[in-house]
């Protein structure tokens, strides 16, 4: 009997949480079901967008953290905001 896959399965697949065995079956289902494929393509497109939406803290913050780490052993003290 052919297993029916849902959007939840496709989400797990897109986030690489499926087993090797499931991967093959889901890939077959994606080829056979245009709606499922559309959801998958939309999901990976959004995933890529979310990756690119990542922010970086300003250099000032990074410098403060590194300074705290360097000074910790001799004089551990909290940073002034």
């Amino acid at each position, binding site marked *: 009997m052919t297993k029916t896959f849902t959007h939840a399965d496709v989400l797990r697949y897109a986030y690489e949480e499926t087993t090797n065995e499931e991967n093959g079956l889901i890939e077959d289902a994606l080829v056979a079901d245009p709606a499922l494929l559309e959801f998958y393509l939309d999901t990976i497109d959004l995933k890529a967008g979310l990756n690119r939406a990542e922010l970086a803290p300003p250099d000032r913050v990074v410098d403060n953290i590194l300074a705290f780490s360097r000074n910790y052993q001799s004089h551990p003290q909290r*940073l002034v905001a």
Partner: protein
Amino acid sequence: MGKVQVSDSELVSLYIRGQEDAFAHLLNRYKSKVYTTIYLIVKDTYIAEDLTQDTFIKAVETLKSGKYNEEGKFLPWIIRIAHNLAIDYFRREKRYPSIVFEDGSSVFNSLDFSEDSVESLTIRRETHEYLRELIKRLPEQQREVLIMRHYEDMSFQEIADATGVSINTALGRMRYALINLRKMMSKHARTYDKNLYTR
């Protein structure tokens, strides 16, 4: 031949043994993930900067005092510190009641978005900055799952365990989060580039 990337646990060991450069590598590797996670929860860049600093300071204190548990992985550990600090701050400072409308949007989200409308209009010109704005507008439960899965690298099962729901509920919330993001993007089609993948 490509460079071999030193693992997190190797960097942690080197740092504990006094190699400051190892910590700089770890910081560089995860500063964006930590900062983005916090920012999407507290919704304020200045608070996110302070809490990012606090997160890594806590890590330094734990690592240098020999209290770090070697069994755990570095990324989930530091993300957990960041998440907890952000949630503590959010709960402490949250002044608006969390009333949820029929469509799933909350009063808190709406107020937050309308308050900085001039700034928001500028921000929306950039697709990925705009996407962050949309994430902030998602209903709380959906935003939580999306941040945990995408930025904190938790599995759906871990999210389910952490939030006290079934894995199907966690998956359902993630699905609605993505559908709602796409819907909100479609409503403002002129202001963003639909094809996120190729940007």
